[in-house]
């Protein structure tokens, strides 16, 4: 006998789909099937059932082998490591709930850590641009119901956010968008012919690393000023045509991804894209939104925003919050040797960071709190497996449009496993004991 849980939230990408159906065994201990999810989302749910999953913490031994340890021992190691360090880095925070992020921030304050999340190698540059010139944004609901000019810049939702186009941006029939995709004009800017670019009405195959120039050219075109014959590999006639297409819409939305946030210019590209959006509002309604990757990276920015005033790369070492990407960002800290311990939760820097940074993690006291076995757990001294947020424990997550959604528990975690929040709460208590506060 089985039972079906409806309206389940998918804890994979920033689209945070909320219409999944999950079939579980009657006792609620086994997850059997997943409906409505994309291939990646479904795989994440099913992975929680893997038979070879780690269910207890383990510590790397001198000879390179792993030894199983108790949660108490892992808590002791983590608390001591953080309390002893002069400047620990506490990185990740994107694949967990806001409740755990809040406890983690409290630990960070007691130990004088640098708190950084995955935005540091993703949309952190967007956040810098937002701080510089603001952002005219909207919710995905508004996109679904109103947007008729959709611009994907340096992102490939067909693969990275597989249900984004069908749920919100291209295909759905909304209140003022009854014709679905036939009523929308889709523009893709990407140096590659991606699967997203293939279904676009217009694909601007831009020269790699010339996004800033093309964005600037669009602004010049809006104003009717003269352009050089070719900008970023795109003929000026095409640029004027796209500018006109955007201006003639009722509601234009720009979605952008790591093709612009992490290529040459970084925050300046987003700065210019926001300026394009602002300019468009002279002619029609326009908004812009980052395609956030991890399902709750937006949430960690929110939590730190209200706790520290900054959304990522927060240096608490001197007892007050400082923020300066380029100095307080994880890779700069690791590369330069500015931190002496590394704590990772809910992210995989072992896979995402440059090799030079990963080598530094390997050489430092380090803990990875992570349900999976990942390249990060391989380089850390202690691996603490935890329950999957959004599958085995609920909690708050923020969608890419900053809408908070309460994720749901659908199945029990294996016997005796801790959640992120429980583990962190114990570490916090131990840190307070050590510090005598």
């Amino acid at each position, binding site marked *: 006998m089985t039972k079906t849980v409806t309206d389940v939230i998918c804890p994979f990408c920033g689209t945070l789909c909320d219409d999944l159906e999950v079939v579980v065994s009657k006792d609620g201990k086994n997850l059997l099937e997943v409906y409505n999810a994309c291939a990646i989302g479904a795989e994440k749910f099913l992975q929680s059932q893997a038979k070879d999953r780690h269910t207890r913490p383990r510590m790397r031994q001198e000879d390179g082998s792993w030894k199983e340890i108790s949660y108490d021992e892992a808590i002791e190691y983590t608390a001591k490591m953080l309390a002893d*360090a*002069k*400047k620990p880095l506490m990185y990740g925070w994107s694949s967990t709930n806001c409740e755990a992020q809040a406890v983690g921030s409290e630990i960070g304050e007691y*130990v*004088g850590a640098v708190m950084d999340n995955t935005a540091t190698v993703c949309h952190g540059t967007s956040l*810098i641009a937002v*701080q*510089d010139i603001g952002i005219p944004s909207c919710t995905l609901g508004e996109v679904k119901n109103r947007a008729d000019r959709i611009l994907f810049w340096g992102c490939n939702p067909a693969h990275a956010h597989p249900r984004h186009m069908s749920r919100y941006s291209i295909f759905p029939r909304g209140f003022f968008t009854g014709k679905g995709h036939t009523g929308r004009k889709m523009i893709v800017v990407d140096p590659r012919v991606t699967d997203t670019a293939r279904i676009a009405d217009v694909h601007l195959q831009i020269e790699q690393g*010339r996004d*800033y*120039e*093309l964005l*600037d*050219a*669009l*602004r*010049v075109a*809006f*104003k009717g*000023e*003269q*352009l*050089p014959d070719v*900008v970023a590999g795109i003929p000026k006639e095409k640029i004027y045509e796209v500018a006109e297409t955007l201006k003639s819409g009722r509601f234009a939305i720009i979605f952008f991804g790591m093709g612009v946030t992490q290529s*040459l*210019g970084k925050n*300046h590209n987003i*700065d*210019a894209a926001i*300026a394009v959006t602002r*300019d468009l509002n002279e002619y029609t309604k326009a908004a812009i939104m980052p395609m956030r990757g991890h399902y709750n990276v937006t949430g960690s920015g929110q939590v730190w925003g209200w706790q520290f005033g900054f959304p990522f790369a927060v240096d608490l*070492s*001197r*007892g007050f919050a400082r*923020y*300066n*990407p*380029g*100095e307080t960002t994880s890779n700069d800290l690791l590369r*330069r*040797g*500015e*931190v*002496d311990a590394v704590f990772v939760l809910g992210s995989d820097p072992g896979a995402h960071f440059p090799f030079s940074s990963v080598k530094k993690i390997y050489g430092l006291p380090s803990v990875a709190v992570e349900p999976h076995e990942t390249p990060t757990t391989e380089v850390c001294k202690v691996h603490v497996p935890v329950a999957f947020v959004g599958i085995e424990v609920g909690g708050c997550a923020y969608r890419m449009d900053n809408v908070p959604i309460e994720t749901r528990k659908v199945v029990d975690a294996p016997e005796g496993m801790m959640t992120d929040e429980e583990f962190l709460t114990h570490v916090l208590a131990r840190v307070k004991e050590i510090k005598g506060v």
Partner: protein
Amino acid sequence: METVTLTIIKQPELYLEADCISPDVFAETTGEIADLPVYVGREQHRLGDFFEISGRAGTTPAGTKIIVKGDLSRVKYIGMKMTAGEVVIDGNADMYVGAWMQGGKITVNGDVDAFAGTGMKGGELRINGNAGNYLGSAYRGDWRGMTGGRIVVTGDAGSDLGTFMNGGEIVVGGNVDVHVATHAEGGTIIIKGDAKSRLGGQMVEGEIYVFGDIDVMMPGFAYRKDVDLEVDGAKGRFALYEGDLGERHRKRKGQMIYGKLYQLVRP
């Protein structure tokens, strides 16, 4: 002028935050200079734990000169917020040299890392070497960048030079990386060497002079005319471009005021 000489005798395990190395702090301190606080991560130490200190400070910042010697590539914030006096750095220094400085003079005989002269208001910062990224830029999120003073770099400078610049002057003897005078609303930047791309992006007002090549010109800059000028002691014919045409601009006597980019015309 009284002189204090600091020689680094111990390298910090991580990085040393020494915002006390400034004529203002030295002149105003009532206790020992060696007891001034410096930080390594969350730990507070004494300046004397890391530096051998000789000489004494004057009674005013203007009457105080500080000479810092040794490998300072792990020391941040030297000369931060200074208003007068002089600092000489004999060696490479880390980030934030002369950040938010308002007056006086800093001479670096070596290279500096990023964020030198951040949010500078006045004084002179001379770097006899290379500078890192964000030289003379605004602090994160601040739309008021460098408003006054003069920065001279004999070598190369990194990217994001003079972001949100509002006034003052930056002279770079060598080459620069991408993004020069982004969002600038004033000030002058002179580049004696080559520039890569993105000069004057989103620039409102201000002047950029380039003596060498520019790899990629911003599409928002339009050629106007050739002009004969004397720039930093060198005479020559410069091609004048105006922009950024995509950005907002104010009008003066009915004429639109643009940012100006001059490039030396070589025969």
